[in-house]
């Protein structure tokens, strides 16, 4: 009778949870991330649609690298696919494949960052910098904040990759992969939006 009234903590916790703590926490974190970018994107929209000409007349000669960045967008989208495949692999307990997919994902993420960085170097050489009026300010800060998030995601992935090599994941225990994949998905999905807003329109 006493057991009926006072269910032990450990059993309660498992049966009453539709979603584990770690997954929930990452989703909650994404809520904050979305609001962070909402602030920055809102700033961009205020300037973009608040000005008669865009880019502003003083920056009219600036040409953003639409083509290269477009290819880069595909690279990042591809990394989203490989991450998903990695998650599927561990769900079916294919540990070796998990390692391969994680490696591919990280590689694509690094390629994305390197291409972004080299394009930035080129733009800066053309004289387009943070202090090039509001056009330069909003471009570098908004795109830079995304790049920073990709960097964090790559570092997180590195940690997950190291644990995958050590064989720490299995079909019953892959929360570590999953939360990283959720975050990775956020970084990937956000990018096309930024690309369309900042580069195309």
């Amino acid at each position: 009778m006493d057991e009926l009234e006072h269910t032990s903590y450990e059993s309660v916790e498992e049966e009453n949870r539709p979603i584990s703590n770690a997954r929930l926490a990452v989703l909650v974190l994404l809520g904050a991330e979305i609001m962070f970018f909402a602030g920055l994107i809102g700033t961009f929209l205020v300037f973009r649609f608040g000005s008669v000409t865009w880019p502003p007349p003083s920056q009219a000669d600036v040409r953003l690298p639409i083509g290269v960045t477009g290819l880069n967008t595909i690279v990042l989208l591809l990394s989203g696919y490989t991450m998903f495949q990695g998650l599927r692999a561990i769900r079916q307990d294919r540990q070796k494949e998990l390692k391969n997919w994680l490696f591919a994902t990280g590689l694509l993420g690094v390629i994305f960052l390197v291409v972004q960085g080299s394009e930035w170097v080129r733009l800066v050489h053309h004289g387009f910098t943070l202090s090039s009026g509001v056009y330069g300010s909003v471009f570098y800060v908004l795109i830079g904040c995304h790049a920073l998030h990709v960097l964090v995601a790559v570092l997180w992935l590195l940690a997950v990759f190291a644990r995958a090599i050590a064989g720490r994941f299995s079909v019953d225990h892959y929360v570590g992969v999953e939360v990283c994949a959720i975050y990775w998905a956020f970084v990937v999905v956000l990018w096309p939006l930024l690309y369309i807003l900042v580069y195309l329109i």
Partner: protein
Amino acid sequence: MNDHAHESHDHHHEESFVRKYLFSLDHKMIGKQFLIFGLVMFMVGGGLALLFRWQLAWPDKPLPIIGVSKEYMEEGEVTTAADRKWEERFDDDKETWIEVNMPSGVIDPAFYNSLFTMHATIMVFFVVVPLLVGAFGNFLIPLMIGTRDMAFPVLNMLSFWFNMLGGIIMMAGFFVPGGHAAAGWTGYAPLSSVPELSGVDWGQNLWCISLIVMGISSLMGSINYITTIINMRAPGMTWFRLPLAIWALFIVAILLLLAFPVVASALALILFDRMAGTSFFLAEGGGDSLLWQHLFWFFAHPEVYILILPGMGMASEMLPVFARKPIFGYKSMVFAMIAIAFLSWIVWGHHMFQSGMNPALGAAFMTTTMLIAVPSAIKTFNWLGTLHRASIRFTVPMLNTLAFVSMFVIGGLSGIYMANSPVDIYIHDTYYIVAHIHYVVFGGSVFAIFGGIFYWFPKMFGRHMNATLGKIHFWISFLAFNGVFFPMHILGVGGHMRRIANPMQYEFLQHMQWINVFITVCAFILGVAQFLLLFNVFWSIFRGKVAEQNPWQATTLEWYAPTPVPHGNFGAIPQVYHGPYEYSVPGADKDWTPQTEPNGESPHGEPIPAGATAD
């Protein structure tokens, strides 16, 4: 991280001092850390207020103690080693910190700007949020929902230490060349974004950095709160059996989670403007200083509800206990809080009626703002309904809670005036606004904090606070509070601008100067009275009357836990059978029915079978 909590409560070994008191993972200790942190900052923030109150009452007169001590130092009578060391830090100009900011004991106008900026910043970000959300959130959530600890204890500890780091960075700003941030707690651009305009250099940078660090701290806290409340409630603790304090903290955690990142991004833009040459808020580069106001108030209006909602929740805990009646309209209380939280996102424009806003847009913001009166009134009438024909026990927590309810009503009513954009044109940026915000945040939140400290102290420290001292503290605080802030309404309608260092410079304000003197006298009484609270807290931790398990005869789960609460909180996790406010149930043998009592009845009257886990 999750596993750690379970393992550590199994073996009851003595923890080291560092593990137990500094880098503790126990939600109760982290809550107490926030409590001490908040109380200390409360005294600091109040001290700043007293400094500028002196200047407002007796402009350009030397301060009492500092003014005198300077005389002594000139006469060379008290030049101790400490004084010499202090002076060596300012070798460049051979001036002490006091001489820079308060030459001859008189507050420098630039320092005055720092004072009111930092008073508000400290009170909002380092006192009310750490106390309400940090201290009570941490202490109460696991206890009231019936679990052993937060979902992520390490994150919880980091949340406190980021909070501490933010506090240290903020306090460091007082001692950098150029003085501390002086653009007001709202940090309006371009005053905040161009160093030349305010003359403040690193002070403003540190202000931004500190608030971003605080943002990280509350992000970690809110992730923890949301996860814990969703996932770790005791069996039977359905959503509508949650105590209202937990509902309030849950809603506040969501607001904090979603609001703070917006201001974090805006603060980052300010930092870029100041340090990297961007021109987000600079018109000459195509930027827009109004953008800051939008981003800031989009955050700061939810923020003011972050400041009041936990107070509402805590008041809803204490009222039924001391009225010995169920709370009136439990579900409407929950939905009112949800409505307030939702509306808080679409009212930020009412801070900007005077910023050149399209009147049509102003009318829209006016309407949404007025709508907030509806859920606020629901809550107020429910509190009154709870008190109606109750056998009220006038304990110290109850007195403070009643002060909360009545002062919140005054603050809420004055809010209706400034929500009207035509009226706001007249009272904008006057002391009327100052009176309003203090009636809500001091009269509301801080009295709820006073009440909460008294109410949960027996569970926190296993001892009672001294009730006589508590009553003295309450009455002095309550009377002095009204003496300070009520006349500000009159000053404001009389046209007294806020944030001016010397009202005597304006002829039309001179006839009201006696009100400023009266306010300052009351402010000093109010300030001194807080030492009673501080003394009562620290004395009672060691010397207070030992408390039993459930001294207030309350129903919620934290009183089911043994006193003092052990690591892991509960012997066995309780099973919940009731809503949280089952007082004076007809036919029951005592006038409170704990949530854990099996053979009672549900609020609807039908018996609940033992072992039922959901409604």
